[in-house]
């Protein structure tokens, strides 16, 4: 099949950027979307033109490195699927495909289709952990965790940090990502002692970078791991509680 690609090219974070049009020829159904771009890049190099910069690594849908807006949809048309796992059989001959980077204020474009998602690391750094220095742990089976709690924590922990939720959100909000990490840790017994401090610190750090949630629900539609927005409700409740709990703990410092 043959496709016309409209690809966003941007030299640097400060460059204005523009679309360029390329022809992708000999595209086969079995190719992944990124393999199709690989082939376009090899042709560009042979023609002496700079290849399109895009991020990818594991190409099995788990590392969270890849992510493109494909015809305006984060990770493209297939539900529950990362860009690297999207295959060309989902497109048809002669189609024009528009490819853009994640569009969000918190994710500045580095070059072409590559963005900077370090804001996510800042949120985790603010509290996305359970303090447990190496060596101090007690026997693993001394902590009983009911299966439903462990399963729910795992549902949330499956987040790959790709940023599709932010890219899909009209507000560029980071709620789904933040709430997934909070739910993972806040649902477990090990996570209780830092629960409210963690929640307050992570949410407030999130708000330094990201827009606000107004319940569009686009994030859960775009999420390649199909993480539900229920976790956002849980985060909001814990955040409210944290405002009371943390005041008490800190001796009314605010």
């Amino acid at each position, binding site marked *: 099949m043959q496709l016309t690609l409209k690809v966003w090219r941007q030299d640097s974070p400060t460059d204005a950027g523009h679309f360029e049009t390329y022809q992708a020829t000999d595209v086969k159904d079995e190719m992944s979307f990124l393999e199709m771009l690989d082939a376009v890049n090899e042709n560009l190099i042979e023609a002496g033109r700079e290849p399109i*910069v895009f991020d990818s*690594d594991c190409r099995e*849908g788990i590392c969270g490195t890849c992510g493109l807006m494909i015809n305006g949809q984060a990770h493209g048309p297939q539900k529950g699927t990362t860009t690297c796992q999207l295959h060309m059989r989902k497109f048809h001959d002669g189609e024009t495909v528009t490819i853009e980077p994640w569009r969000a204020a918190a994710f500045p474009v580095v070059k072409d289709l590559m963005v900077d998602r370090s804001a996510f690391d800042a949120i985790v750094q603010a509290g996305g952990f359970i303090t447990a220095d190496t060596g101090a742990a007690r026997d693993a089976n001394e902590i009983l965790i*009911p299966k439903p709690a462990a399963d729910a924590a795992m549902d949330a922990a499956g987040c790959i940090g790709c940023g599709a939720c932010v890219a899909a959100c009209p507000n560029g909000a980071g709620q789904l990502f933040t709430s997934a990490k909070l739910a993972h840790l806040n649902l477990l017994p090990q996570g209780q002692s830092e629960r409210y401090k963690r929640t307050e610190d992570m949410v407030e750090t999130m708000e330094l970078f990201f827009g606000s949630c107004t319940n569009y629900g686009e994030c859960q539609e775009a999420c390649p791991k199909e993480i539900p927005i229920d976790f956002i409700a849980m985060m909001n409740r814990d955040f409210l509680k944290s405002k009371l709990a943390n005041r008490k703990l800190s001796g009314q410092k605010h």
Partner: protein
Amino acid sequence: MSNVVLDSKVPEGPIQDRWDNHKFNMKLVNPANKRKFTVLVVGTGLAGAAAAATLAELGYQVKCFTFHDSPRRAHSIAAQGGINAAKNYKNDGDSVYRLFYDTVKGGDFRARESNVYRLAQVSVNIIDQCVAQGVPFAREYGGLLDNRSFGGAQVSRTFYARGQTGQQLLLGAYQALMQQVSLGRVELHTKTELLDVVKKDGVAVGIVTRNVTTGEVQSWSGHATLLCTGGYGNAFYLSTNAMNSNVTAAWRAHKKGALFANACYTQIHPTCIPASDESQSKLTLMSESLRNDGRIWVPKKFDDNRPADQIPEEDRDYYLERKYPSYGNLAPRDIASRAAKVVCDEGRGVGPLKNGVYLDFSESISRLGETTVFERYGNLFDMYERITDENPMKVPMRIYPASHYTMGGLWVDYNLMTTVPGLYALGEANFSDHGANRLGASALMQGLADGYFVAPYTVGDYLAGLLGQGVVPTSDPVFVEAEQAVRDETRRWLSVGGTKSPEYYHRELGKLVWDYCGMARDKNGLEKALSEIPALREEFQKNVRVLGSAEGVNQSLEKVGRVADFFDLGELMCRDALMREESCGGHFRVEHQTDDGEAQRNDEEFSFVGAWEWNGDGTAQTLHKEQLVFENVKPTQRSYK
């Protein structure tokens, strides 16, 4: 310069006591002095993130480097199956000694006993540590941890988090690391790739990196440097490794004097999705657990083009069940992989390119029902369908072996130190614990053992001897020269002005390495590879095209240096395979097999670690041998009949 002495520094005494005695005998650094030491940790996978976090908790100044945009992207994240630990929670007869025994045997008696024993010992601490961090392992209804048996083990010792165990363990280590970053004890440098290791007076004093966003070349000095940079499976081009996984850090260390051991020990995983065409960029693994309920077969006839459902039972060859009646479809990875290659080479492969074998669930579906089978493997079936557009509930899966893990790596002693003082290698980057073949669910165990529980002790022992010494300043000529060499190298690649992309040459190299040094090797093929690889390298150096500049993002520039190192490594893999005139684990020399086609070891002559010393570009490496001593597990012929 063959003054290298391979001293494994294995402690004396009964094997059960060695690690404890060693820990007691090691020098300590008092808490107030720890902050005077700087440790560089390169790589943020399981080994790197765990080591960086733990060293920082202890009080050392840690600088941590990854070429990814976040530590969480490291390829440890893709491990599916699980992590072994000798907890014996199932009361089924497991013990530290049994895990040790299984690992030595599984490695086909080519691993160092003392290291393996320590690995089995600390395996139990790893699970405790990970649970404390909040890793959501699978649970039973009573709230206790669930276990399963994995990779042919006769006990249930594998802990798992759905099919995403690597992801959850890595996120645990990453979160511990980010906490240390927040406390100011770890200085994290993302998008920063190691391009050289710097030595002064024979000792590792730091590294040179290139920032892959800005192109800035920079030096970093430390009292010790830990390479936690993964394996080299991408030498085959097509593998289950991530696109960016590479050997560069280990290789540049090798070129600076660190010996590289057992390069030919590579693991081929039997259940991957076959390549569909030339444009394929990587292969995807399907969890080995599928072999529990799937039956593997090919048509009996050559070039049988009928669809699977039109091939009657009598025309099917369930070759694993035929050849290995007792283990059947659960035969170990190396054996199952070679058997698939044999039938495909005979012309009995299936699929459009005749490059796969069937993994058929129809019998399980009729025995257990669709619901049960889908409950067990649904997520894998969905993944398979996304890639192939075929539903394994209706049509048998097609699978073929692919490069998955590399047991070889930088030679390290018992302290995980390479032959360069002050330079350590952890996790898949070293050679130490898996011998010639790694058992399922043991890679995660080793990465975390090295990072959480081994290196933090042994590095301290080394640092204690450096008390009072500052780091070598990055203005020192050794750094200035190394930086200049990196810049010159970059400029050279940009000025070749050839016609083909680095990707093209990687693919061509991969075909050579796979054809001659893949699942089966022989003398003629390896000798052929040793003449063809240098010829291709010469073409690569003259005809590769790297566009753009040294400043800013340039993915071709990142790639070209990695491909150059894969050329050198591919050559060493072949040289190592040619030297090793025996078959063992993942290394199968067709000249050395039993009458019924099994690997035949030669313990008399080859019970050693083959560690190679770099002698400069264009000169063959020198072989050094570390004899392996088996005091506890007696080497036997593995049999899975």
